[in-house]
């Protein structure tokens, strides 16, 4: 794990094995960091689930449980934003060809909802082809107005 701190932002990075245990670790780290970043409980749940889904994709579809390949999960926090990057060392992903899980023909499919949920739960989602591998960056903004209101009501 590495940690770097700038003036107003902190970056923590985890290099993880391609295993289900890593998925749980990434989810727990996301939960802890989101809590500290000022998100409410519902948002924390959504963020940690999005990170879980991204890490599942990296372990399962990207690295395909290959013990030689690693998953890197990085968290960058600033006063108003949490950015999480999940990178695998797999063959790469074309986000443009992911089927819509809400389409009638896909509704009863067993899989294919992970990226849809990530997009539903985060404010911004970006994909980067890393050759090898894919990096997905998930961004969530702290709701400043809500925070101010909560403080006002104390």
């Amino acid at each position, binding site marked *: 794990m590495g940690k770097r701190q700038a003036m107003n932002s902190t970056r923590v990075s985890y290099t993880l094995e391609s295993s*289900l245990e890593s*998925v749980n670790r990434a989810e727990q780290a996301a939960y802890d960091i989101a809590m500290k970043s000022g998100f409410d409980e519902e948002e924390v*749940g959504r963020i940690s*689930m999005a990170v*879980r*889904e991204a890490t*599942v994709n990296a372990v*399962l579809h990207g690295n395909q449980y290959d013990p030689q390949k690693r998953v890197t999960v990085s968290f960058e926090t600033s006063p108003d934003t949490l950015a999480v990057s999940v990178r695998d060392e797999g063959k790469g992903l074309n986000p443009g060809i992911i089927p819509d*899980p*809400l389409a009638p023909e896909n*509704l*009863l*499919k*067993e*899989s294919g*909802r*992970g990226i*849809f*949920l990530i997009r*539903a739960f985060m404010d911004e989602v970006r994909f980067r082809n890393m050759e090898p591998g894919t990096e997905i960056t998930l961004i969530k903004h702290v709701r400043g107005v809500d925070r101010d209101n909560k403080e006002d009501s104390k």
Partner: protein
Amino acid sequence: MTMKASTRQVDGVTIVDLSGRITLGEGSVILRDTVREVVGQGNKKILLNLGDVTYIDSSGIGELVSAFTSVRNQGGELKLLNLTKKVHDLLQITKLYTVFDIRDDEAGAIKSFTK
């Protein structure tokens, strides 16, 4: 928290009480094996009680869909009972709320199965 599943029979309906996390790995496997076993015993009216399910991920959602379709393909019915807000929201976002028959009262759910 790992997932647990137990089954009971009420008026010809098999109720599967689930608790914990239905996620990729153990949780999804327990759900799959339990539903397979219940169907294998010839039960065709299955009610999944999700009241104590604290968390579900996309793999868990997929497992619910798989259970629903496999029971239906064998001429049975699978319904859901006691969704927590989190699970309710997930099924709404994924449009599966319209697919499943979702109930919040056990007695009413049991009566709703085809006689």
